[in-house]
């Protein structure tokens, strides 16, 4: 950090410079969300050369601008940046105007990238544990020694216990998840441990109801419903903000359904402050009104839905009056909103990860999908489109995970299926529920996992039952941590693999929508390490799987993935704006195709056997699950466990995203920590006053399962009967005098607050975990 001696700050310097500037405003032509600008396709392909194109942007001559992509948030990258380097040091980023996703804009995280790269908490070299587990004593080893240690252990365990004794946990940064799948398949293990909190659960429910995860057509809608979604924090420069503001200025009616007033709610016309975890009850009440008042599209229902006649009597019991004590939403407001939604054409619903934090996740999403379908909003302009673009990603392809090798025997070996075995493999491959990896270690059932690899994931702050996770990490034979900075459970690792940030590699290519673009290296790696991608390729070779891992060549790996696009990685690097296949004009009402989509299951059977919207789901029925969406109570709630209210009167839940952090990372980045210095509890003024609490007070939040200490943030933008906090807190920030927090008692880890009752804490079909409980709050 330099101090205040920068030349422009002296008056003499100022006077010598021209200060003329016309008005610069970007307000004209409020943008719309478009994945890739047409102009990008016109970039000529120049001859391949090894060097990346260095940008000539306006800036001081001493600075060099390297065009690449931001890498500060998961699960996807794609915001184009110019990384500015001075004297060999990465000093700042500027948004690239020609980047189709962000169009020159960036978020707070993006601008803090250099502090993350040069963070004192970075792992500098591979390490091996020398002390007792949990003590955190390590010695430095080389990259080769580390690979040998891991490969030797895996080979030995494969021989003794079978390859399925290895589980790899899913990372928060998802661009390398396909590499983990590839390694698992080559090794012979079906155990990819996926945490049921992010996108895959809703994608499952949508696919088995309407054939795919719909994408809201915000650009052409008249009513935009933001449901359990955070369009601002989930990457403010990626287009969510642009769409929200553009919709608002076009006069679109915006309705937000979520428990607290976040910035997107502040821009909405109507806030429906639902009690956390009760979205399924609310959606069922909306279906009740739409059917009772015959507000549905009879033509669509007749032609394209299956089982509507069975839904009609089924939702009779789910009246808005029935839902009111559960959701906390007055029956009249539910009726008004149902009418508004069903009579405003077109209307679209953007569904967020909030729905995936509840035991009724699958039925909430199904009910919402059915609501969109029967009101005639499915695949219509301005409605919820079925073009399959929701999970659009460039390159890759299913065979990258070697999924063609899956067999029934393979599926049978899954240690704790994320989705029932009959539904495996899922979108990415076969998977086990993340939390069940730890259960297997502790119980040995159905067999014990012997090695856990945690690449870019922090299990003690990412899944429920923190005490169980720690017990399992103490017990497991072998535990490997792969990350950029220290993790919450690094002290338990046998081997620690440090990896590059994405500013220190020139791969992989980034995919956004149907487009791909090369990543350029900004600086050389700061320590003895390689990228996540290279690690898996190196380990594959070391294990003897060289044929599946391009014999160690990252270039060959990139080229193979780009082959379907007819371009090599070297050629792609020369196209600053990337490569996009020609855009197809939108096709609406493409039901015949969308409703006959083949599933990812072994039998490749269709998601919708009747070729219609599965209102009555015969696939679920055959396997013993509810054919129609139903309400399922959280393990603890005012209506599920009223007997607890005298001791624990408030509903507690946590936020999935925050404005400046990324899951359980980036608290160590001082520029971001200055914006959000402490873990806070959002609490209503009346609720706070009853307890003598004012903003800034330290407060203890206690549930049946645990307690955390937070700082009170008192404001009226939350239900008075609910309090909420951000998850993922543990990391300190030495520069600001913030110490690491414990992951159990006395810390701020929300995961320790919830039930882990196997019968009541998880969605029975999609293993989504509860993020709701009852608590008491008191001054610390």
């Amino acid at each position, binding site marked *: 950090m330099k101090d*205040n001696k920068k030349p422009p*700050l002296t008056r003499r310097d*100022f006077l010598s410079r021209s*200060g003329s500037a016309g008005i610069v405003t970007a307000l004209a032509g409020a943008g719309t969300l478009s994945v890739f600008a047409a102009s990008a396709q016109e970039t000529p392909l120049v001859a391949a050369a090894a060097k990346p194109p260095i940008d000539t942007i306006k800036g001081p001559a001493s600075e060099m601008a390297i065009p690449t992509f931001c890498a500060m948030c998961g699960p996807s990258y794609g915001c184009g940046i110019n990384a500015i380097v001075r004297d060999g040091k990465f000093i700042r980023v500027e948004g690239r105007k020609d980047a189709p996703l962000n169009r020159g804009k960036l978020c*707070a995280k993006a601008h803090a990238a250099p502090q993350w790269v040069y963070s004192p908490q970075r792992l500098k070299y591979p390490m091996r544990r020398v002390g007792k587990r949990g003590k955190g004593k390590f010695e430095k080893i080389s990259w080769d020694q580390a690979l040998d240690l891991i490969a030797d252990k895996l080979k030995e365990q494969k021989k003794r216990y079978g390859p399925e004794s290895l589980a790899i946990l899913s990372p928060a940064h998802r661009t390398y998840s396909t590499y983990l799948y590839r390694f698992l398949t080559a090794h012979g293990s079906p155990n990819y441990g996926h945490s049921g909190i992010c996108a895959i659960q809703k994608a499952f429910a949508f696919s088995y109801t309407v054939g795919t995860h719909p994408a809201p057509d915000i650009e052409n809608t008249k009513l935009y419903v933001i449901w359990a979604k955070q369009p601002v924090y989930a990457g403010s420069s990626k287009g969510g903000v*642009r769409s929200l503001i553009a919709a608002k200025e076009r006069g679109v009616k915006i309705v937000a359904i979520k428990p607290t007033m976040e910035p997107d709610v*502040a*821009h909405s016309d109507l806030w429906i402050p639902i009690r956390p975890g009760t979205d399924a009850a609310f959606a069922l009440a909306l279906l009740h009104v739409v059917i009772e008042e015959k507000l549905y599209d009879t033509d669509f229902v007749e032609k394209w839905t299956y089982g509507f006649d069975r839904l009609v009597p089924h939702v009779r019991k789910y009246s808005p009056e029935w839902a009111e004590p559960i959701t906390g939403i007055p029956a009249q407001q539910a009726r008004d909103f149902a009418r508004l939604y069903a009579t405003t054409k077109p209307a679209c619903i953007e569904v967020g990860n909030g729905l995936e934090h509840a035991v009724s996740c699958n039925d909430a999403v199904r009910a919402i999908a059915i609501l969109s379908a029967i009101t005639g909003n499915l695949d219509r302009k301005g409605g919820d489109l079925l073009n399959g673009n929701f999970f659009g990603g460039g390159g890759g392809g299913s065979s990258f995970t070697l999924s063609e090798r899956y067999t029934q025997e393979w599926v049978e070996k899954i240690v704790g299926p994320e989705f029932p075995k009959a539904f495996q493999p899922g979108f990415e491959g076969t998977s086990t529920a993340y939390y069940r990896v730890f259960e297997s270690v502790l119980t040995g059932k159905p067999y014990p996992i012997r090695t856990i690899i945690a690449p870019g994931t922090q299990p003690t702050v990412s899944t429920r039952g923190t005490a169980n996770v720690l017990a399992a990490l103490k017990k497991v034979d072998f535990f490997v941590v792969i990350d950029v900075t220290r993790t919450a459970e690094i002290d338990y690792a046998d081997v620690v693999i440090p990896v590059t940030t994405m500013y220190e590699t020139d791969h992989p290519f980034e995919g956004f929508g149907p487009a791909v673009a090369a990543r350029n290296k900004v600086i050389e790696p700061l320590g003895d390490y390689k990228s996540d991608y290279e690690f898996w390729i190196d380990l594959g070779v070391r294990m003897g799987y060289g044929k599946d891992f391009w014999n160690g060549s990252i270039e060959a790996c990139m080229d193979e993935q780009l082959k379907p696009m007819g371009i090599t990685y070297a050629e792609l690097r020369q196209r600053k704006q990337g490569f996009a296949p020609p855009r197809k004009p939108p096709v609406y009402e493409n039901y015949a195709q969308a409703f006959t989509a083949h599933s990812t299951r072994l039998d490749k059977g269709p998601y919708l056997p009747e070729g219609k919207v599965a209102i009555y789901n015969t696939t679920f029925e055959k396997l013993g699950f509810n054919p129609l969406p139903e309400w399922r109570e959280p393990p603890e709630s005012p209506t599920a466990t009223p007997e607890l209210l005298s001791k624990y009167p408030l509903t507690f839940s946590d936020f999935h995203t925050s404005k400046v952090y990324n899951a359980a990372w980036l608290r160590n980045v001082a520029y971001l920590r*200055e914006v959000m210095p402490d873990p806070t509890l959002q609490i209503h003024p009346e609720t706070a006053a009853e307890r003598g609490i004012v903003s800034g007070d330290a407060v203890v939040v206690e549930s049946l399962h645990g307690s955390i200490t937070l700082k009170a943030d008192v404001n*009226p933008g939350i239900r008075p009967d609910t309090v909420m906090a951000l998850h993922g807190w543990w990391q300190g920030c030495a520069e600001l005098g913030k110490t690491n927090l414990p992951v159990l008692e006395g810390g701020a880890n929300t995961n320790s607050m919830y039930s882990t009752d196997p019968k009541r804490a998880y969605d029975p079909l999609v293993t989504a975990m509860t993020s709701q409980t009852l608590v008491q709050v008191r001054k610390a």
Partner: protein
Amino acid sequence: MSKQLGFYFDAGRCVQCHACEVACKSTHELELGPRWRRVLDRWAGKFPLVVNTSLSVSCMHCADPACAKVCPVTAISKRKEDGVVVVDSEECIGCRACRKACPYGAPQYGHNGKMQKCYLCTDRIALGLQPSCVATCPGEALAFGDVEELAKLAAARGGEKMEGVTRPSLFVIPAKNVANISIEFHSFFQELHPGRTPSAQE
């Protein structure tokens, strides 16, 4: 009237993402502590008719800067060519009189004890770039330019110049809200500068 550059802020487009704040810190490689730009927010109303609105502020390059008036060593000056208020760190003695005088808490202090603040990225402007806060804003809530042009833009969008004895060069567009609650922009500064009301005379 001589030329005066200023900022423009549309609360109806701000999503409180703090990108402007961190872009500023990173562009100027600021040490920890000083924040040349800040995103402030205010709550009003009663649940469930609640209003939450924001203001992104830096130095407002006032037409009549209180900071310059009180500086005992004339380290603070107003540039003739564009009205930008600048501080000469070589002359500043770190007495903090400017901090006390500024109604908006703009002057900041780092380890060297000298005043530092937004200088409207005049070096970037000279290169044809936008100030870093304006360039990055995902909601395009921020703009900068000549106050006469900003006045036209603000008028067209239902906003106006922020009032105050120092005549700040900031145009603000209030966010429309469902509860029809108006939030006085000066109220944002109470927490920054307790005990002072920007609209009152010295």
